[in-house]
């Protein structure tokens, strides 16, 4: 799919803001239904393979703010967002989880979401899995992935390989081609006539009596422009979507309930070389799910140095062994909540997040259990990412680690952001209705991770895509294309 250059004045029947998991699927469904669709993406189109995956170079090209984004709090939580054609789907680990059926049921009840039928969502998930080629790695897992399997099995903990949206050209893991949005739903949208404009940011929606008629834009060269439309789908992700609505003075329950999966990390060193710089482990340990999940992270040498940096004085000597090291995480389902606030005069929103006491304790116990798992898998040294952390070589060190850990000293981060415009009919806690239309507006829809009422406790992209397709289909069934 080729993106077209943005111009100062553009028109569309349906404007889709953002081309990530939510935006690309929305555009594909609506274009197929005959709507004239314009997708506007702030980032650029970066061809897969033209940047090294999980590198600083990739962060320069495909991450918002080069990956240096933070939710303020005690501790602050570093988060990352994609900013390129395809959004987060281009840079993420590609680990696919189906929407949890029991959670859908709970969301429907707790947030008064009409017609949220798990069987419908599961059937959409089936379609999505075909389109993005969800599959297991052919052949044996990579060595860093096998560490998770081995450690969990020794402890009798539940673990499994998580399928990914990948196509494997040959029989080995390294031949995988990520089936992100630039490979799947964006070309599908284009084949039905949708246009994609990259390097163009939507600054604001102009509103009159609950109706949006025009968007103001900033083009790549700094010039400003406008886009006229009949309907708008805001799919900028869980931070940018609420910020755009707030900048457009749309009131309601927007940006008040950011939910994330806070994550703490450690680096483990083994006797043999195992580091795979360009990929991530595909096993996850779900023994303590949904409260706690363990998995593996990207482990480029630069990221290993970063993971050791909190306790550099004692950990730095290990950096020369980076080929024998890999990074792992413990992620929690948090009870805490954050806020996204657009402030007049500031280009970017202020993001805050408050962990609860239970969240902090869970991060500590998660890190301890993960370190134990590493020892069981044969790690000779474990380096937890918090200030003052000891090197963990045995169970005695583990006890020391437990007693010195505090979340305030840890490098907490997250890549799963959601719930800033929760969907449902309860306007006291939902920003959009049961199908994503923003309450008190007539033609403004949100259709991305913002809609998830809570953090799902699993990798969220599958859920984001299935819900976005459900909502877009409902729209197509109730609105007629002009054409």
């Amino acid at each position, binding site marked *: 799919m080729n993106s077209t250059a943005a111009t100062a004045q553009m028109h569309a029947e349906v404007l889709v803001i953002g081309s990530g998991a939510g935006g690309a699927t929305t555009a594909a469904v609506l274009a197929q239904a005959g709507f004239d669709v314009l997708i506007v993406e702030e980032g650029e189109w970066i061809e897969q393979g033209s940047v090294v995956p999980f590198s600083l170079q990739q962060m320069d090209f495909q991450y918002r*703010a080069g990956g*240096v984004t933070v939710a303020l709090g005690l501790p602050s939580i570093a988060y990352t967002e994609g900013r390129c054609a395809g959004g987060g789907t281009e840079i993420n680990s590609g680990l696919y989880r189906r929407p949890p059926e029991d959670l859908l049921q709970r969301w429907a009840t707790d947030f008064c979401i009409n017609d949220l039928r798990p069987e419908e969502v599961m059937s959409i998930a089936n379609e999505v899995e075909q389109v993005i080629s969800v599959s297991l790695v052919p052949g044996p897992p990579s060595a860093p992935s096998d560490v998770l399997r081995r450690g969990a099995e020794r402890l009798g903990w539940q673990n499994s390989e998580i399928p990914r949206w990948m196509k494997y050209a040959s029989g080995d893991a390294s031949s995988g081609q990520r089936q992100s949005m630039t490979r799947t739903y964006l070309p599908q949208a284009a084949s039905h006539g949708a246009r994609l404009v990259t390097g163009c940011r939507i600054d604001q929606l102009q509103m009159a009596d609950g109706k949006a008629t025009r968007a103001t834009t900033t083009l790549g060269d700094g010039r400003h422009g406008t886009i006229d439309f009949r309907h708008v789908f805001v799919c900028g992700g869980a931070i940018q979507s609420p910020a755009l609505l707030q900048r457009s003075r749309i009131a309601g329950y927007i940006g008040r309930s950011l939910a994330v999966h806070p994550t703490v990390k450690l680096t483990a060193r083994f006797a043999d070389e195992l580091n795979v710089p360009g990929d991530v482990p595909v096993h996850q340990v779900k023994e303590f799910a949904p409260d706690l999940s363990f998995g593996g992270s990207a482990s*480029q040498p*630069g990221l290993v140095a970063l993971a050791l940096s909190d306790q550099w004085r004692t950990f730095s000597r290990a950096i020369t062994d980076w080929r024998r090291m890999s990074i792992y995480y413990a992620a929690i389902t948090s009870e805490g909540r954050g806020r996204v606030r657009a402030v007049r005069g500031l*280009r*970017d929103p202020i993001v805050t997040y408050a962990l609860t006491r239970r969240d902090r304790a869970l991060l500590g116990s998660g890190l301890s259990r993960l370190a134990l798992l590493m020892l069981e898998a044969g790690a000779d040294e474990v380096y937890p990412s918090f200030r003052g952390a000891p090197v963990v070589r045995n169970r005695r060190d583990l006890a020391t680690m437990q007693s010195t850990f505090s979340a305030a000293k840890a490098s907490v981060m997250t890549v799963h952001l959601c719930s800033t415009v929760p969907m449902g009919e309860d306007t006291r806690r939902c920003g959009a209705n049961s199908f994503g239309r923003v309450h008190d507006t007539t033609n403004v829809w949100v259709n991305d991770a913002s809609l998830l009422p809570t953090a799902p406790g699993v990798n969220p992209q599958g859920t984001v895509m299935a819900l976005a397709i459900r909502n877009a289909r409902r729209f197509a069934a109730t609105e007629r294309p002009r054409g």
Partner: protein
Amino acid sequence: MPSASRLRRLDTIVGPFADLLLTADLPQLPDARRAEVVEFVQRRANGVPSFTRFGLTVIALLYRGVMAAPGGRLVARFLASKSIPLLGEYPRLIRSLGYAYVWDRWPDTLPTGAAS
């Protein structure tokens, strides 16, 4: 969008401090490499979102003030070695960006900064 002159100002504030920290932490990092790392850190600092940028500028100015006083470079290094709430986030950010760049670009660098 922040104006070009404001971007330059943050460059000049962050650069000398990054250079100071890297010289202390990785004393054998060759000068040309250190200059490249400092440039990277400056670029990333310039790209941070508005509010973080505001906080970063305030703390960076504080450190610059300390560095300008007699014996200030030593004091700044001492402060950077302590994990002081809020103030400590600045050296932490500079270090994490700097180390990540060094080992991303030259993976076989020794802990002293020396090329292996």
